[in-house]
């Protein structure tokens, strides 16, 4: 009797664990079976023109404003194609990518999905998204695509897995009023950022130099400093910035320049940033700058809107990304775009809408309302927004391609998913003196050397 009771309670406890999200299984998705491809809901066969077709688009970087812009473009398309209905699904931002992953694993329910630089490898490796090459070849607007757009289209194994809708490039926001107060010039190099940061930092009046990103994805900021110290000529490929050119998988983390850059990164944190910025993510960084705690911030163009709303026009400016000792300013050309699922029932219609969404007029409109850099080189002609005001800085950077260069962490490696969760902890340990510079660099070197051994050259 007694034992039975204990067993029953234990079983109940197990069930509670399951409910609480602790159970190994409860959070698991449906079993994999994507290749079998359950048919999409729309009905059977290829739709001849005239037959009604529903195209489902699932977005990831959702915001109500952005969904409205997408809806507007979709309505325009529907007006011209009365047989087509476009459905937009907007899962909550926090878990949108895992929602999309589940849909793709199930092999149904989506025709177009939002593909990001951080998800393209996963989607393409698993064969969930289709090659768009034949549709792009037949597209009358393919010639105005920018070079960056072309690069991204063929990001993964030279197959056209996606059509970008824009780029997120970082720039340096700074407090012009504080700089004037101290008689400082506009910061152009990382050294300027450091010197100005030290001059401004005054913990007693809670003023600091720089909005440090110590929380999730902080390593991306360290990377840009390494590359600015090294220059892009030494790296294997702009999309695989951790590997050396002709190095057979040797990484940049053994170079003396990188060690020097790492020391600079730590000094920047210790001497110009609030101590709690070791835990700062996007919102704290922006809040720190807009709220008057920090004088400088490196962020995406979407912050322009926040600054315009919360600060006076004469209080801040946006200038190009700071340069390093190599004379170059190197930063990732973050991208996102649309991909067609490999199981769509209506590939022709889906591709047609996907390219409509990406045509110069719609893309420029989208980019303007969402603060991304457009994918067509005639965007500035279509809308003066891109040649005037705050945004013009990006056009200035584009005009000097030898100085302002792009590089990115090797996101095409499967190991990258593991790296992303482990690397922040390692940097935080280094910044809080728990491990040494050599510990961190050798960990980075070993991790990526092993990734190369396991997966080969993937750029």
């Amino acid at each position, binding site marked *: *009797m007694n034992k039975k*009771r204990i067993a029953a309670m234990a079983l109940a406890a197990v069930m509670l664990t399951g409910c609480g999200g*602790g159970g190994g299984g409860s959070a698991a998705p449906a079993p994999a079976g994507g290749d079998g491809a359950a048919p999409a809901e729309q009905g059977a066969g290829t739709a001849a023109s005239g037959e009604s077709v529903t195209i489902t688009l699932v977005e990831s970087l959702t915001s109500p404003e952005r969904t409205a812009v997408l809806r507007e473009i979709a309505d325009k398309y529907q007006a011209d194609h009365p047989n087509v209905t476009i459905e937009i699904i907007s899962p909550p931002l926090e878990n949108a990518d895992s929602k999309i992953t589940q849909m793709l694993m199930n092999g149904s329910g989506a025709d177009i999905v939002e593909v990001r630089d951080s998800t393209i490898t996963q989607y393409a*490796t698993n064969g969930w998204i289709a090659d768009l090459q034949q549709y792009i070849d037949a597209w009358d607007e393919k010639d105005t695509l920018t070079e960056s757009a072309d690069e991204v289209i063929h990001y993964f194994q030279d197959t056209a897995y996606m059509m970008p809708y824009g780029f997120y490039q970082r720039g340096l926001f700074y407090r012009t009023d504080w700089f004037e107060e101290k008689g400082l010039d506009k910061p152009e190099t990382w050294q300027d950022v450091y010197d100005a940061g030290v001059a401004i930092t005054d913990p007693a009046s809670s003023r600091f130099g720089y909005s440090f990103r110590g929380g999730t994805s902080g390593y991306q900021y360290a990377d840009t400093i390494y590359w600015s110290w090294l220059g892009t000529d030494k790296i294997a490929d702009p999309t695989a910035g951790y590997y050396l050119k002709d190095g057979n998988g040797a990484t940049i983390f053994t170079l003396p320049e990188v060690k020097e850059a790492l020391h600079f990164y730590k000094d920047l944190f210790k001497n110009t940033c609030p101590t*709690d910025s070791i*835990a700062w993510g996007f919102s704290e960084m922006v809040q720190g700058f807009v709220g008057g705690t920090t004088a400088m911030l490196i962020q995406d163009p979407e912050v322009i809107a926040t600054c315009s709303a919360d600060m006076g026009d004469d209080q801040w400016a946006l200038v190009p990304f700071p340069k390093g000792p190599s004379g170059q300013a190197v930063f990732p050309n973050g991208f996102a775009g649309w991909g067609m699922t490999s199981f769509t029932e209506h590939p022709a219609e889906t591709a047609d809408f996907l390219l409509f969404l990406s045509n110069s007029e719609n893309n420029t409109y989208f980019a303007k309302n969402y603060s991304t850099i457009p994918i067509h080189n005639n965007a500035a002609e279509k809308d003066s927004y891109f040649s005037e005001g705050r945004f013009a800085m990006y056009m200035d950077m584009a005009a000097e391609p030898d100085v302002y260069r792009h590089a990115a962490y090797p996101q095409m490696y499967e190991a990258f998913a593991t790296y992303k969760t482990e690397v922040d902890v*390692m940097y935080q340990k280094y910044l809080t003196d728990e491990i040494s510079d050599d510990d961190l660099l050798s960990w980075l070197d070993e991790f990526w050397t092993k990734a190369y051994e396991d997966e080969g050259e993937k750029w």
Partner: protein
Amino acid sequence: MKQKSRLRMRRTRFIFFMVLPAVVIPMIFTYYPMLKGSMMAFQSYNLMNVKNIKWIGLENFGKLFSHSASNSFYTTMMNTVKWVGLSLFFQFTCGFGIALLLKKKFRGASIYQALIFFPWAVSGFIIGIMWRWMFNGTSGVINDILMKMHLISQPVGWLADKGTALYSCIAANIWYGIPYFTIMITAALRGVSEDLYEAADVDGASAMQKFTNITVPCIRSVLLLTVLLRVIWIFNFPDLIYSMTQGGPAGSSNIVTSYMMQLVQSLDYGMASAVGVLCILFLVTFVVVYMSITKYAQEEA
């Protein structure tokens, strides 16, 4: 005779069909996914590449207990013990105290009661975000108050310091969990007969004697059960940690379940499932030990 047995057959069949859903539904929605999920613990199950899923035995567990620099599972386990122990102790004592105070009738008692129960009604993530800004090192209200009270001279980065991050989360968790004990214990106290206290008064018992000899024994089974459930819940409550520190800085405030969430995000479902299996084994062991030590089952029988 024949008719009787047919009747019994029919009755058995009826009972069988009535019981069936209660057996089948948990099977499908609880035990099947649990088994299926637990199997992932022994596979290299990474969503980065679902075409390459294979059995790897205990490799995932081996990685969890390896001694490499980037492995923080040991710290995570220690943190879990602190997280559960400290949270439970303060939630229980404060909750019990408030429940005893609420036992006395006073004006506005029901309003006060409603206010006490309020945190329980708010989602863990929202609580976490609220506390994260309160603990903010540069613009947080907690620093502001402490500085105005001249308890600290410089703002403290509560969530940014490896020494304070976990304890800040625990403080938030204590605040969040008190109402649970207050609700449960208040209800239990209502069931204790006033006659017992009157009899004790007649015998001249002190307040302390009444507490240890009447109050506690009368609500013992409720206390034991609430503590047991609470341990399981606190253990499975990564929401606060996740929204306050994401386990940082440098993994110093991770507990086992928030660590598992990070593994899920890195798409390594095999590793995440290995952690989940360990959680279940630990909790089942805990429940069995707890129940035999407290003799909970005998008490009830």
